[in-house]
């Protein structure tokens, strides 16, 4: 799987790019195709060099860097208030949750007590984001395996969430709503009403998803037994989120290391033991229902009070290292800040879920058909800027 590295003395002996990519995998009769950087199945600009024998995949080698925007490096030159908004662009489908992780880390460093109201609204927002992300995943994954209509049906509900977000946060996708110490603004007066309306709609429509996709015989055949990721592999590749929970790994950060008010609400950690694409699919579908459950518990019990703690105008984290982790829609996001006591972080490292999940792709894909690859990538739910950062 890994290319052997050796010291190359003669530079001219390094083969050019395509041959380079297949060393160790290529043989007679092998077909090497490049999927990406522009390809509808990669959901962005991932580049996969695939060695095929006929239709059977022998090897998948992801090439990264096509959307490397050096967010980590960039954060070093931004203040603690400023750097949070950049992380919305990292995993843009769970923008709120990324912001949450960064805000938590700064709050941990500054030892700011976040008011209850802010915490509850944050959790509601996080769960709405998770539903929106899973909706998009559902539509895009169905599109990957060739069904177009689910995409449009998924966006119908997603637009409702976007409306709610826009009303409260002022933007549809990259909201920038969380600030260290709480929220930028209080929730919109209509927020609770809109969320309840959405929940009613969503509960009605999620059954249609099963009719359209989940029960479909073609879909089940495309998903069952495809992209096996054993529990041991999931752990050793560092997979997290629904991708790992589909293999039965107990890894929900909301349960393991509760943050905000997750320890006060009741919800189940979804575990499937199928280890295949169908299991990962079912985890996400069931997770959406759990998110609705969390929102239902909180939406009528938003405590009164401030939405933002009193903070200094200029934030300076004390010297030291701080790490927080949250559960994004894709898995575990860790934020690691090294502070030298200045107004900007000395070093920031994000542990993004997509990168680890992508690393499992090769072992999942070997031996399966080319058509399975898009199904696997669909259920891994890759967001490429999250991988490259």
């Amino acid at each position, binding site marked *: 799987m890994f290319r052997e590295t050796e010291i190359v003395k003669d530079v001219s002996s390094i083969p050019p790019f395509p041959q380079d990519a297949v060393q160790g995998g290529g043989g007679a009769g092998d077909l090497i195709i490049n999927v990406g950087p522009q390809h509808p199945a990669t959901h962005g600009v991932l580049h996969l060099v695939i060695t095929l024998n006929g239709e059977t995949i022998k090897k998948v080698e992801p090439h990264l860097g096509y959307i490397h925007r050096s967010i980590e490096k960039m954060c070093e030159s931004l203040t603690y208030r400023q750097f949070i908004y*950049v992380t919305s662009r990292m995993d843009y489908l769970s923008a709120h949750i990324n912001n949450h992780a960064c805000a938590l880390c700064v709050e941990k460093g500054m030892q700011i007590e976040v008011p209850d109201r802010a915490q509850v609204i944050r959790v509601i927002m996080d769960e709405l984001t998770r539903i929106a992300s899973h909706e998009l995943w559902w539509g895009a994954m169905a599109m990957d395996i060739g069904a177009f209509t689910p995409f449009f049906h998924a966006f119908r509900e997603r637009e409702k969430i976007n409306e709610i977000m*826009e009303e409260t*946060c002022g933007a549809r996708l990259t909201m*920038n709503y969380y600030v260290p110490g709480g929220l930028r603004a209080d929730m919109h007066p209509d927020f609770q009403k809109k969320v309840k309306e959405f929940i009613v709609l969503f509960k009605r429509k999620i059954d249609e998803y099963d009719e359209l996709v989940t*029960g*479909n015989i073609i879909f089940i055949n495309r998903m069952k037994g495809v992209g096996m990721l054993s529990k041991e592999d999931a752990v050793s590749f560092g997979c997290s989120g629904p991708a790992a929970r589909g293999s039965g790994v107990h890894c929900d950060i909301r349960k393991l290391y509760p943050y905000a008010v997750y320890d006060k609400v009741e919800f189940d950690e979804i575990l499937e033991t199928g280890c295949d694409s169908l299991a990962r699919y079912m985890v996400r579908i069931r997770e959406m229902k759990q998110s609705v459950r969390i929102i239902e518990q909180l939406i009528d019990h938003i405590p009164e009070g401030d939405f933002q703690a009193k903070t200094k105008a200029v934030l300076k984290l004390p010297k030291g290292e701080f790490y927080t982790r949250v559960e994004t829609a894709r898995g575990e996001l860790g934020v690691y800040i090294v502070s030298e006591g200045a107004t900007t972080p000395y070093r920031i490292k994000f542990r993004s879920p997509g990168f680890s999940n992508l690393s499992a792709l090769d072992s999942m894909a070997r031996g399966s058909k080319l058509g399975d690859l898009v199904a696997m990538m669909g259920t891994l739910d890759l967001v490429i800027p999250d991988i490259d950062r």
Partner: protein
Amino acid sequence: MFIVKYIKDVFSGIKSLLVGMRRTGYYFTHHKEIITEQYPDNRDTLVMADRFKGEVVLLHDENNEHACTGCTACELACPNATIKIVTKFDITPEGKKKKALDKFVYHLELCTMCNLCIIACPTDAIKMAQTFEHSVYDRAELTKILNKPDSKIREGVE
């Protein structure tokens, strides 16, 4: 038994397909479920959420006065240097020199609508407008000067 299972497979497969077709057929025949909003036709009735962040504007009142003192707090708060404040020195009636806003340069092409400048502004001189139709043929048009010609600072704003 093999043959029974085979026939069962066929029928359950066909049934699952028919369930999906019933769903799409329902939407095909029920046009009231269509949720399309016809954008250019609904421009007059389109209402943006009042918190929607479209672009930064400098508020002017009817006397062509704004509240910007040129303190550059927004410029400092902006993470990607979208705002550039150019100041000049006005001579007050008392004969003192006073710093005042000359040009409020706003690079819409860089702006990410993060709202940090609005929070930073001590005099609430700027706010987010709800406009969104920012498409132009020339990139240079996106660099805007927000203060209107001959506008000056409102009395009493420090």
